[in-house]
């Protein structure tokens, strides 16, 4: 089920009302209800893959208990190995099997031998990259003795499949989300209103910004050779906003929905396009994934504690793995490599942690220097997105080459609608800038203004969502 579907428009109010009016008195019943609702939500896409979530949950539930109760280090390692093996095995099989076979066949053919392509044409189960990472963090944290396993199987299954964040994150840690299943949830008016604002902003990002940018992006990326460089430039910039609007929008809707049910999910995006360097960008983009890789891959590899060479190796690994996580395609790996190449100079010169705080924290506008930093970072990120968006490497190289052409000075060939979307993107940037000190842009916007102005803002956003929404468009991150 998509958030931006009529099904969800009916599904969620029913869940909300039953959750608070029927099941509130009994925590266990409320958790069971969340589990049922989550499975219904997921099965709307394809019920056959419910078994996969249930299997993954069951394996980690049992392994968690075994690791927690076992004192013998070897046995603990075995149970952890089973958990990781099952999750990574599922992920590897469904997501990467065809890629490895194709790549191997290509390599064999390049070496002059004959090998026939073979593909299982597997369907990628939606959300598998998200929930497998979530469950792995559970068993790893138990293994590290940071977390006690739960015996409440319903709460655990509900934690793994919690529908607001099941299919595209944020990838929650057990230490944050699971304990919330054991506490009585109380309805707070202010929290619910905050959730509604966040959902509204999420829909604006997805339906107004992302889906409308997508129209021009598809034109530019589907047929780059027939377009002037100025069109390609706009296509690339629009894609930057499309992917942010799409994924950031989804995260906001997920977190807002969680708030309406009394849960606190982690922040996943923190105004990444106002970053002053690539290191800051990665502290602000897809935070739940980058911190996951930091805690479960980078630090176990030694992090930055070893020699310079080891640190560089670890940085490279983490960026390449992060790219590969997004999909079984060389374009994602190169995208990760580009970011590694941009990050490493900062690391070598000890500049990767100089931009920690919020840009222009106490000022209305950035300085020229900050603006320059933001624009340079945005341009580099956009360059990386070209590889992310392109169907293959040659298309990405072709698109990038197409940008370096004298036709960059030509007036772009655009429909009036594209100018309209440009205005919308401008409005989006202004609102994001205005709200950059908060969790999401409109969280406290116009709070100290007269009610009519605040509600005028919400009214404007709702109308923009109503008027600019296109027919149900899937979220990009569903494919990961």
């Amino acid at each position, binding site marked *: 089920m998509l958030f931006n579907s009529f099904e969800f428009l009916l599904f969620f109010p029913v869940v909300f009302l039953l959750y608070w009016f029927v099941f509130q008195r009994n925590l266990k019943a409320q958790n069971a209800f969340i589990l049922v609702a989550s499975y219904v939500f997921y099965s709307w896409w394809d019920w056959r893959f419910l078994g996969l979530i249930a299997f993954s949950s069951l394996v980690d539930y049992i392994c968690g208990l075994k690791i927690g109760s076992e004192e013998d280090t070897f046995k603990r390692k075995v149970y952890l190995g089973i958990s990781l093996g099952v999750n990574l095995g599922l992920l590897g099989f469904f997501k990467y099997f065809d890629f490895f076979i194709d790549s191997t066949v290509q390599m064999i053919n390049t070496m002059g031998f004959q090998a026939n392509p073979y593909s299982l044409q597997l369907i990628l189960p939606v959300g598998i990259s998200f929930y497998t990472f979530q469950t792995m963090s559970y068993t790893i944290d138990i293994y590290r003795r940071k977390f006690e396993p739960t015996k409440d199987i319903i709460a655990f299954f509900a934690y793994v499949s919690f529908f607001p964040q099941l299919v595209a994150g944020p990838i929650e840690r057990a230490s944050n989300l699971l304990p919330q299943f054991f506490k009585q949830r109380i*309805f707070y008016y202010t929290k619910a*209103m905050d959730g*509604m604002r966040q959902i509204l902003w999420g829909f604006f990002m997805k339906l107004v910004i992302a889906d409308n940018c997508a129209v021009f992006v598809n034109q530019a990326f589907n047929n780059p050779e027939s377009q002037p460089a100025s069109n390609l430039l706009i296509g690339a910039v629009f894609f930057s906003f499309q992917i942010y609007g799409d994924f950031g929008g989804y995260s906001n809707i997920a977190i807002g929905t969680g708030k309406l049910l009394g849960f606190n999910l982690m922040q996943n995006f923190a105004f990444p396009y106002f970053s002053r360097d690539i290191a800051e960008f990665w502290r602000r983009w897809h935070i739940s994934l980058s911190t996951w890789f930091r805690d479960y891959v980078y630090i176990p590899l030694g992090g930055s504690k070893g020699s310079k060479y080891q640190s560089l190796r670890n940085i490279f690994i983490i960026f390449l793995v992060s790219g590969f996580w997004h999909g079984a395609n060389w374009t994602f790996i190169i995208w990760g490599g580009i970011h590694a190449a941009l990050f490493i100079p900062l690391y070598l010169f000890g500049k990767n942690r100089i931009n920690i705080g919020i840009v222009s924290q106490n000022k209305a506008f950035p300085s020229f220097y900050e603006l320059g930093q933001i624009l340079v970072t945005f341009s580099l990120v956009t360059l990386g997105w070209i590889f992310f968006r392109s169907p293959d490497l040659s298309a990405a190289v072709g698109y990038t080459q197409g940008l370096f052409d004298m036709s960059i000075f030509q007036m772009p060939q655009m429909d009036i609608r594209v100018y309209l979307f440009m205005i919308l993107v401008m409005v989006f940037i202004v609102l994001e800038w205005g709200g950059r000190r908060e969790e999401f842009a409109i969280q406290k916007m116009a709070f100290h203004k007269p009610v009519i102005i605040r509600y005028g803002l919400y*009214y404007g956003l709702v109308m923009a969502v*109503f008027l*600019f929404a*296109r027919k149900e468009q899937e979220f990009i991150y569903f494919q990961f």
Partner: protein
Amino acid sequence: MNRFLAKLLIFSFFPVVTLYGVFLLENGTADPFYQRFTTPKQEALILGNSKVAQGIIPSILNEELKGIYDGKLYNYSFTVYNSPYGPAYLESVKKKLADFEGKRCFIIAIDPWSISSDINDPNNPDKFEENLLFISDIEEVTEKPNLKYLFKWFIKSYYEIILMRIKENQSKIHEDGWYETRQPLDETIQNERIAFMVNYYEKYLLKYSFSRKRLSYLEETISFLKSKGDVFLVRLPVHNEILAIENRVIEEEDFNELMGNLINKFNVTFLNNFQNRYNFYDGVHLDIESAKAYSQELANQISNFTE
């Protein structure tokens, strides 16, 4: 909780009302079909696919035939996907047709596509492709605004309704159901479009086969309308290259013979003797001037015939 729900409800009222107002602004410029489901029941209908939607202008016929027929014609044609003859289209036609005491006529456009299907079993109406399209889904065909169509089938974003009222636009559904669309008439572009359509139809052709079931629904349509007034069958002109492809759609039967059988069976008139002197945007759809000329010629033929 009550405060939250009350606030949400009160706030929702304003955007919903505004959106409703926007829906009322749609005047046939933002969507090529919507308007046909918002007008009242009609006295007389013109049926067919997109060729007919663009090619027959009811107001011209109504003007020419006003001394002969009392019922005003309305163009209720859609596309080759939505309105081939079948149960869905017939049902929709029945809903759109008003009870009328005066004299009226109906124009039913036929070409090989309209009695063919691209499904594996072309004689199984349960599987007809239009069963999943708006012609089957929209039960209320006279509702303004037509919310089901707007929510489910309106192909664009709703801001287009406002934009199309401000911007000079190329297409519009008129009050008589005619779909007017303006395309550049540059010869090179036109030839490119014709070449594209020839190529497209060639591919399209491979999937299509004659449907005896569709023919029987065409007969049911003729029979139903014949009980209400005079029925004229027409086949609209197309570019010669397209005509050659069209004539290959039905291989099992002779199309002209099928039409001959219909004429005899229902005692209706088949108006097919037009000189192919018209101009097309793409080989299939008549340009505006040709649509006017064709409608005038059609009106003259009906007029001559009834005299």
